[in-house]
């Protein structure tokens, strides 16, 4: 399967900003990057977080960014097959927690 990279550092538009937040912001970014379309077309998405530029991301952003993906794929095990993360261990821990939260919302079984 082909891979596509999405760089979250794209969202850092000024040197004064080093954090990312907001559910709507996350939703809009997922739409701009065409996350669902890429998954439908069989791509694996690699999300890259450059920790020299991005220092903090809130859960609200992750919910906005990932909720449509979870709505479609339902469980975190399915999402894990199609999304990869290139980031430091702190962000990985945060993403794991958010996967847990989203799985509980969308995975009814």
């Amino acid at each position, binding site marked *: 399967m082909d891979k596509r990279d999405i760089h979250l550092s794209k969202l850092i538009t000024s040197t004064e900003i080093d954090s990312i937040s*907001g559910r709507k912001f996350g939703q809009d970014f997922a739409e701009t990057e065409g996350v669902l379309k890429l998954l439908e077309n069989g791509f694996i998405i690699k999300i890259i977080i450059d920790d020299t530029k991005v*220092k*903090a991301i809130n859960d609200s952003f992750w919910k906005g960014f990932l909720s449509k993906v979870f709505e479609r794929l339902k469980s975190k095990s399915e999402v894990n097959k199609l999304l990869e993360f290139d980031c430091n261990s702190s962000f990985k821990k945060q993403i794991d927690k958010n996967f847990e*939260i989203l799985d*509980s919302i969308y995975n009814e079984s």
Partner: protein
Amino acid sequence: MNLNYCNLPIQVITNDSNWVDILTLLFTIISIIVIIYVVFLAKQTEIQYDKFKKLCLDLVDSELNNIYLYIKEQHNIGSRELYIINEYFSDLNILFISIRKIYPKIDIDALQNCSFEYTDQIFERKDADSAKLYFHQTRISILNDLYNYAYFKELNFLQRGVLKVFSNVKYF
């Protein structure tokens, strides 16, 4: 000796008296049953509230306290502080998920939205005073949602009592 001075039918008086006795007895029995039933429902509700308090309210309150203790100590909010505060709220959201496993009707979205709104605000403002101020609002909203859920949905004493009575009526 004739005691029936007014020539009243003695048999009728005795029958009336019996009916009054029977009605009084019936009323007393029904009252006792109602009292026992009300005491039973009150006790049941008390036990359920106690369970809700220990498994839900106390845990959420203690998690919120931990967050407040951290925020209170901060004089500046930078990206490191934002990361840590968000991590605290992630743990709180994981706690909400555990609570929903026991109380499936709980509106977990509303609770999570309170925490998302809070972190959105402090990520936007990056200001220690706002972080403290908004935290109180968030804490009140979360606890208010939990109390409302407990009293009006999960542990509604009156509604539960009435529903139970009506559900039993069909057996008579």
